């Protein structure tokens, strides 16, 4: 409470100001939480209440029917042919793999830059590793697509072995989880975060351990990691939320329904329901049956909440560490 001094807090004017700030903040909180609450309340509302004109502000009745969508398949949908747990599983696999590769790869490189390399090499490698972040990813998107389609050729066609009509051996990663995981193997922004933190760890600690005969990897594991828990938490949270939220890239490289992450699944689901909502014919028996299964906006809301839950949980787990760990040094 630094801005308003402790001493004058009993003064009427100061108390009034504090009260005003508190009220404002609570109003803001309720505005902020309102969408979440409204989403939840929509998700448990029976579909008949939702498509009413004019809609009811306080709908009656509650049902958990929509949450069954996680386990059951729709009947009669063209775009959504999998139960939602498949999308959740896909997102989980890809996010888990990206975290498992990206965090150690980035942390080790940042540590090497910060503590192990000569200053000359360190500066050069820093340019190579961080410079990539300055160019928007759209520029490399098309060749990256080619690269993953005919690995390791990124030119859009596979050259032929000289004097033969046989193309060079190549591997197609498109429509596999790897197409999403491999480009996420390293992140320049996280390298900045790690390096900023490692730079603050005194060299004496590391040299002392070296004199005691610890191996380099041992030093990293036993000294650096325990000291840098906050920054690991920040990076873990950021990597998690960015890979969980990934949309454009999976949309491009994953064309098989079985492999799509939940963001893409949700998008397709929502598109289809939205089209449906504009052509409601209340007498259509089949349509009503599908809507009762959750094929309506309350189903979409339920699945949106399901998509958000892991992000909520990670935020709560890492909140304390996040506060300690965020020290951005900028591009210096």
């Amino acid at each position: 409470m630094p801005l308003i001094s402790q001493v004058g807090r009993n003064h009427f004017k100061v108390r009034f100001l504090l009260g005003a700030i508190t009220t404002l903040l609570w109003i803001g909180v309720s505005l902020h939480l309102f969408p979440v609450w409204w989403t939840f309340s929509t998700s448990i509302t029976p579909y008949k209440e939702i498509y009413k004109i004019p809609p009811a502000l306080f709908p009656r009745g509650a049902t958990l029917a929509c949450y069954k969508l996680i386990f059951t398949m729709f009947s009669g949908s063209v775009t959504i042919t999998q139960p939602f747990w498949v999308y959740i599983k896909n997102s989980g696999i890809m996010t888990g793999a990206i975290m498992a590769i990206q965090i150690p790869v980035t942390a080790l490189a940042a540590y090497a830059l910060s503590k192990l390399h000569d200053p000359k090499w360190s500066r050069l490698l820093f340019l190579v590793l961080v410079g990539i972040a300055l160019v928007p990813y759209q520029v490399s998107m098309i060749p990256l697509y080619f690269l993953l389609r005919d690995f390791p050729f990124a030119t859009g066609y596979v050259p032929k072995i000289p004097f033969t009509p046989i193309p060079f051996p190549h591997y197609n990663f498109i429509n596999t989880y790897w197409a999403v995981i491999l480009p996420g193997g390293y992140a320049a922004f996280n390298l900045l975060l790690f390096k900023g933190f490692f730079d603050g760890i005194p060299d004496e600690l590391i040299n002392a351990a070296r004199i005691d005969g610890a191996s380099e990897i041992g030093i990293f594991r036993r000294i650096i990691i325990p000291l840098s828990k906050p920054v690991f938490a920040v990076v873990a949270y950021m990597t998690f939320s960015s890979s969980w939220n990934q949309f454009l890239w999976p949309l491009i490289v994953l064309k098989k329904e079985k492999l799509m992450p939940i963001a893409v699944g949700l998008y397709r689901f929502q598109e289809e329901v939205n089209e449906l909502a504009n052509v409601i014919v209340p007498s259509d028996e089949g349509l009503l049956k599908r809507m009762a299964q959750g094929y309506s906006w309350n189903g979409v809301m339920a699945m949106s909440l399901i998509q958000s839950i892991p992000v909520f949980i990670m935020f709560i787990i890492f909140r304390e560490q996040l506060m300690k760990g965020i020290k951005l040094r900028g591009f210096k």
Partner: protein
Amino acid sequence: MKKVEKVKRAKHKKRAAWIFSLPALFFVIVFGWYPLVLGFRVSLEEYHFITPPTYIGLANFREIFSDPLVPITFRNTFYYTALSIGLTFIIPIIISILLMEMKKNTIRIMMLLWFIPMASMAGNIIWKWFYNSYYGLFNTILVYLGFPTLRWLDDPRIAMLCLVLPGLIMFGPGLMYIASLQSVPNEFYEAAELEGARLGQKIWHITLPRLRPIISMLLLLAIIGNMQIFERPYVMTGGGPGMATTTVVMYFYQLSFQSLIFGKGASLAIILFCVILALIIIQRKYFKENIDV
């Protein structure tokens, strides 16, 4: 003996340095620089489906410059960036400064409630439903209050504003401000107090200069992120009504991955890169990170 030991250790260190940085170098070169460099080449080529692409020089760029849709998408993107930064960038800063005035426990609870994140696709979809012209929340409220309803995302005049509005109450980076606000020493405020500084003066002369590096950094990231906006307009409006919310990256996606005109798509991406680079340079020039207290 000792010297031998030292040399050995230095050698170990050097070897470890390279072993530790190799995986990252592998990823950044294979999946970063290699496609990036080729991206510039793609913009100079025309793609056919089976035969190798042919070099056509700057023809793709000429085509981009004569495409009447490109100026529209750039205008939309600038409009979105300006609206989004103008309307939503300052709010988390104010909230964080005010939050710090609360009691310790209140800060903890409120921080959780204020900055709780939502998955981005879920957020977009939820807001799209709020804006729905027939059954959406906003029109429901308007009807109950007796006002005429609006068409929100279907109205070309306010569609872009509607895209930006969720940012007013849903935001992420607040935590970063709180983290750096905590590092402001209390003595600064006490000293200012003794000299009779008022509330506004304290914020202006002590708090904001301390937040300057983080504000500058997040402003930079906000500019870069907003210029590349894709997901929100793609999900909420699909670029419509008409072309009112089609952004550059949406047009890029359409060209490259739906119409499969790779060369033209790549040259649009490069032009976007140049524009963003120019913005970064301007921002760096006029908004330095240094604290000058």
